[in-house]
């Protein structure tokens, strides 16, 4: 085992495997592998379960998430990817982790009770006015919501919550936008749409880790 810093801040790598340093030593919430090395404990981050991990392995040179950042995370689900973001930002960063579904949010709450830098919010990402009073401005917005109008939701949240000069990361799921169209066509449409309003700085498709998904990073200018 030869785990070394990757080109991404606070993410580690051993060939095709990614790791973060566990903020809650000895505890794993998703049956992920824990590897003790010296005083550090690494958590394995599976690119088949996390689009962010897939994006890193597909060559995103920078995910712009740094220690102590405030992250607005839309579509947190059970909290798999949020838990790794939680490792990256460390105990002085915070994630506002939002999801719409009571069932998944229930799992998320259990995670938040163990990881005090994740703040759970149950709300609809399409209606930012309804959670405007539960969050603050963010350094980073991360969105993975599997909705037909996901690009529009993304922009709305950027306009309201992303700090000037901040970065936003979007996981695009082609199938929830239109199952009849070719994913490539949809990715281009989303990209063109976003380029009209912001500055797209990275674009990757996520095969073979995630089928029919793409990852887009924008900068708030």
């Amino acid at each position, binding site marked *: 085992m030869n785990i070394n810093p990757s080109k991404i801040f606070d993410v580690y790598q051993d060939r095709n495997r990614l790791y973060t340093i566990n903020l809650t030593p000895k505890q794993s919430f998703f049956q992920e592998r824990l590897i003790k090395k010296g005083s550090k404990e690494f958590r394995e981050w599976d690119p088949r379960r996390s689009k962010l991990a897939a994006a890193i392995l597909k060559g995103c040179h920078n995910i712009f998430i740094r220690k102590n950042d405030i992250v607005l995370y839309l579509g947190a689900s059970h909290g798999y990817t949020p838990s790794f973001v939680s490792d990256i930002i460390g105990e002085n960063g915070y994630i*506002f982790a939002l999801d719409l579904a009571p069932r998944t949010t229930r799992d998320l709450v259990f995670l938040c009770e163990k990881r005090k830098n994740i703040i*759970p919010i149950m709300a609809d990402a399409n209606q930012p006015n309804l959670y405007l009073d*539960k969050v603050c*401005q963010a350094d980073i917005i991360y969105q993975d919501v599997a909705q037909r109008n996901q690009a529009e939701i993304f922009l709305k949240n950027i306009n309201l919550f992303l700090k000037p000069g901040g970065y936003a990361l979007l996981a695009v799921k082609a199938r929830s936008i239109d*199952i009849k169209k070719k994913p490539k066509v949809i990715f281009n449409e989303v990209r063109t749409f976003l380029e009209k309003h912001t500055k797209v700085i990275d674009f990757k498709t996520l095969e073979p880790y995630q089928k029919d998904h793409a990852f887009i990073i924008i900068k708030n200018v």
Partner: protein
Amino acid sequence: MNMKHLFTNILGTFVFENNQLKDQILFKDLKDYLDKEKFEQKLTKKYKKVFEPKDKDLEFILAFFKDKKYFKQFYQKNLLLTKQQIKQSVQDDNLIIQTISSIKELDRLANVLIKRLREWSELYLPEFSKSIQDQEKFIELIQKKNRKQILKELKLTEETTMGKALTKTDIDEILALAKQAASTYQLRRKQEIYLEKIMKKFCPNILELCGSTIGAKLIEAAGSLKRLATFPSSTVQLLGAEKALFRHIKTGAKSPKHGYIKEHLLVQNAKEKGKAARALADKISLAARLDFFKGEFKAKQMRKELEKKIKQ
């Protein structure tokens, strides 16, 4: 001109002037937040003209709260609020969905158990298993009767049967499985009665129109009564056929015409099944809306209309 802005969040209610905090009332607990109007009125009275922040002012305020000293409170209040929202989200349709899912699982479980029970018992009394088609009857009788009785009733002897006379220890194990299968059927029946009871209270129109099983499956497939009530009837018609529909879109396989509603007797007995399914889906949509908005009970009437419309 100095505009004052009033902004309330989960932490408290605040007045800003010229991008500076002028006044605040911090919420002690979540209750204060849920009663926020009371506190807002206090500050509004004190400052007379206060405005709702927009655009740049709002951006400033949201950035203002991006401050280390607020995060503990953000965490605690949001955690508690989320817990309460989750609790409040539990409705009768969650119970209906759990029950119908459980019934479907018990069906599968009962099938597995009975298949094994028959295989196993056929080493011992194969002619008996073959002589009774009805599953529950078989389970009941194999527990009740002994080998001698059964052979006699089937006009068999120890010489003519293919079954081996097993020891008591061997037979006891078969009977223990029979007992388990019987209780699985019992539990399923109990849940069916319960399902009908909660549906009568929560969605009487759907219950009357579809019966508990199909009605509950539709709610389950939609995800909630609310969603079922918002679906157009063309979607209702296809609920339960999602897999086939997806295959159709992806590979061009034959498109499904209907889902669960084809299990309905009115559709099964109809001459023109397509027409019957459409008419039924229309009425189900209506019934779901009535139930969701706690409207009148009209399903008896709707059912009559349907029966007239669908000539059998």
